[in-house]
Every structure is written in C-alpha cells, then in structure tokens.
C-alpha cells in the first residue's frame, strides 16, 4: 500500500469515527428526551395520604380505594380496629375480593386466600398482602 493510499485509508477511518460519534450524539440528544417523555411520571405527593370517612367502613365490610396509584382495601374486622392493605394479589397481580361470609380475602384468578391481616391462608400467593399504616383522626381514617 503506498503512502497516499494509507493516508487516504486513515482519513476515511477518521471520518467514519467522526460520523459515527456524531450520529451517536444526535441519537442520544433526541433519544433522552423521548425516553423521559415516555417514562412513567413520578408520584408528586398526591395520594401519599388518603382520607376515608369512617362511616364508609362498617364492621365486617371492606372498602376499596386507590392508594399511590394502586388498588387498596380498608377493613374493620372488629369494632374500632382498622386495617389497610394492598388489594393486589401477590401471586399474579389480580385484585382480591372480600368474602364477608368467610371473613377472608379471595383472589378470583387462582384461588389465593388471605386473612384480614393480609397473611396467606391458602393457594399460590407467595407472600402476604402489603399493609399500610392507618390512623383514626376525628371521624376520618388516614391511610399512609
């Protein structure tokens, strides 16, 4: 290979690298905003605490609501005792139902059973329902 063709090959490689670098920079400059635009938006304080009127949760009944963007359930198993749990089954993400007759939660998808405290009683769920803190403030229940 002669000197001039070597120089030409080097120049071609250099320009190729330069063009590649420029293309990558261009894709990144446009790709990052696209990624941020599509990425799920952060929860900004809303739903951090949810208030539910106490009369909506009579003894032995369940009240379903949305907490931090996910389905949750409030329960009064005994007078004055309140429990807040995630309503999302830990097996495959279906929403549990409250079976008042049996006094337990039942997942309609694969028959998972949970106690009023969210503990697994039977079926395929690998772990308990996630509990949330509940406080009674005046006539309201404060979750979170």
């Amino acid at each position, binding site marked *: 290979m002669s000197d001039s063709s070597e120089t030409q090959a080097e120049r071609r490689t250099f320009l190729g690298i330069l063009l590649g670098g420029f293309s990558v920079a261009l894709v990144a400059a446009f790709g990052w*905003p*696209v990624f941020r*635009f*599509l990425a799920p*938006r952060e929860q900004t304080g809303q739903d951090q605490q949810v208030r539910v009127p106490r009369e909506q949760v009579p003894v032995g009944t369940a009240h379903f609501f949305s907490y931090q963007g996910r389905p949750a359930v409030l329960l009064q198993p005994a007078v004055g005792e309140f429990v807040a749990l995630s309503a999302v089954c830990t097996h495959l993400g279906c929403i549990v139902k409250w079976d008042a007759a049996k006094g337990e939660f039942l997942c309609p998808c694969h028959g998972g059973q949970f106690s009023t405290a969210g503990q697994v009683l039977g079926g395929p769920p690998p772990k308990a329902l996630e509990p949330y803190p509940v406080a009674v403030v005046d006539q309201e229940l404060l979750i979170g």
Partner: protein
Amino acid sequence: MNLQKRAIDWLDSRLGVRELLQAQLGGYRLPKNINSWYALGAVIMALFGLQFVTGILLLIYYVPDTEKAFASVTMIMNEVPFGWLFRYLHVVCSNLIIVALLLHMLSVLFMGSYKRPRELTWLSGFTLLNMGLVFCLTGYLLPWSQLSFWATTVATDAAGAVPVVGDYLVAFMRGGPTVGAATLGRFFALHVLVLPLALLGLVGFHLFCVRRNGISQAPFGKDYRPVTHQDTFAHEEHPDGIPFYPNYTSKEIAVIFFALAILAGITFFAPWLFIPLDALEPADPFSTPEHIKPEWYFLWAYQTLKIFPSKFFGLAVQGAAMTFLALLPFVDRGPERRPGRRPLFVTCYLLGLFLFIGISLWGHYS
C-alpha cells in the same frame, strides 16, 4: 470478513441487493448541474418524518375531548418531561414544512420542471402542498384554545360562500352548525389517521413519478438545450452526471441539516412566533377574541375574501388561481425552460409572488 460485508453478502445471495443498490444509488445518475433547490423534496420528507415521530409522542398524552383537550396540552407543556420540546417541534416543524413546500413549488416553477413529461409529478406535488395545508388546518384545532376555535370557525365559515350548498358544506365540515365536539372528532381523525395515510400514498406516487421520469436538468448554463419530448415514454438519462449516492445524498443531508438547524433555532429561541397569546386560553364559544386571524399561510385567502365585496367572488378568485396553478403544465406547453427566454412567464411568476406576499402582509396588518 467484517460483519457489514457478511450481512450484505447474505442478503445479496437471496435478494440480489447489490444489483439493486447499484442501480438505485451509485448507478443512478443525476444532472451535473443539479443544485441545492432539488434537495427540498428530501427536506420536506425529513420534516414530515419528524412530524410523524413528534405527533405519535403527543398522541400519548393528548385527549381529543372538548372538555379535556386544552388541559391535556397544558399538561404536556408544563408537566410531562420534555413535553414542551415535542410540542414546539411539532408546531414549528409544521410551519417549516409549509415554507419548504412553497419553496419547492417556486423552484420547480422557476426552472420549468413541471413541463411535459412531468405533469403528474406536478399534480401530485401540488396536491401534496394542499394536503399540507389541510394538515395544518386540522391540527390547529386540536389544542382547543381560543385561537384554535376561532381560527377554525373563520376558516370553515369561508366555505359558506359557495352557492346553493354553502351552508350545508360548512355544517358538513364542522359536523354541526358551529365548531364543537363533532368538529374536534372529525379533525382529529383526519389529522392523525386519514391524512397521514393519504400522504404516504401520494408521496409514494410522487417519488415514483420522479424516479420513473428521471431528474430534470436544471435549465442553466451554456450546455443546456430544451428537450422536445416524444409521444413514447423515455427515462431522462444523464450518463455524464453525478451519482445519486454518495455525491448527491451528501448534499441533500447538508440541506436537511440546514433546515433542522433553523427548526432547532426557532424551537429553542422563538417558538412564540407560531403560538400567539390567544393560544394560551381555552376555547370559549361565547367570546370571540379581537382581531382573530388565520395562520400566515392562509392570510392571502383571508385577505382576498375581505377585498372583494362579494364573498363568493373572493372564493371564486381563490379557486380559479389554485386551479390555474394545478393545471399549469397543460396550459404552458412549450419545451423552453430557461427563465431568461421566458420573459412573460418570469414576469407573471414575480408578480404572482409579490401579490401573494403583499396580500398576506395586508391581511396581517389590516
């Protein structure tokens, strides 16, 4: 053996891609004196490509409902990360597309490239220009701002001047007697589905015509001679011309980046050129803002309607002008394309251009 070569070898053994690429890229010759104006078609396609991308992104958050549309656009602008960027790009790019379409048409007119055998290329291109305008009109309503609402009211109202069926035509376009939820629904469907599909089809036909006829030689320089076309089909060959790839594609890419630089400049430093104050208020069907005016590319039509005492006459003049332009290749049939040897055409061309700019400015300041 590097990966790129192996990939091409694999494809070549199955589809004969090397022969295809050679015929369509390196072996496809363009006239030696081709200039940057010929790259405007590529610029328009690149800008439309960008509109597809930003439009799809905006669709993710936009809600086509009269109660929610304005709030969804406000959310895109203020809350969604980089939402402002994609909306500004979409708005500014739509205006740049109209500029590029007009420049493309003006350059084709000046160089006489619309003449036989390229009548169909011209007709499809002229239809594409009008389609671009309808794209803008339908997209303009979607944010459901005061500007959107009233500009659409004024624009659709113009069709009422058509004799006999005028009122029905207006109601048909709006989906009711006034601009409302039905208008938003049909404009949305047109803007995001019907027009993009139609555009893809027509651009395909336009490119087919361009490729099938061959690129016309620029009518400049001492070597240029007018070509008299026969009744039989002939592809315009340029055996001594430059290869489409890489010689001309590099020039096209340079012009595309020049247009993108303008787009970025306006998007980052002057987006308000295309988003006036009335665009910041939600639509109120009971309160018309003062001095409502259409977008700059419709100002000529708006002012023409005002100049003539009869709205019908104004509309007829617009229709006649557009029809004349569309059918120009069938009227102007001489083979001569050199501007210096077409004094009547160049005079009409310049007068028409000045008239367009003058009436638009008059409309803007009236």
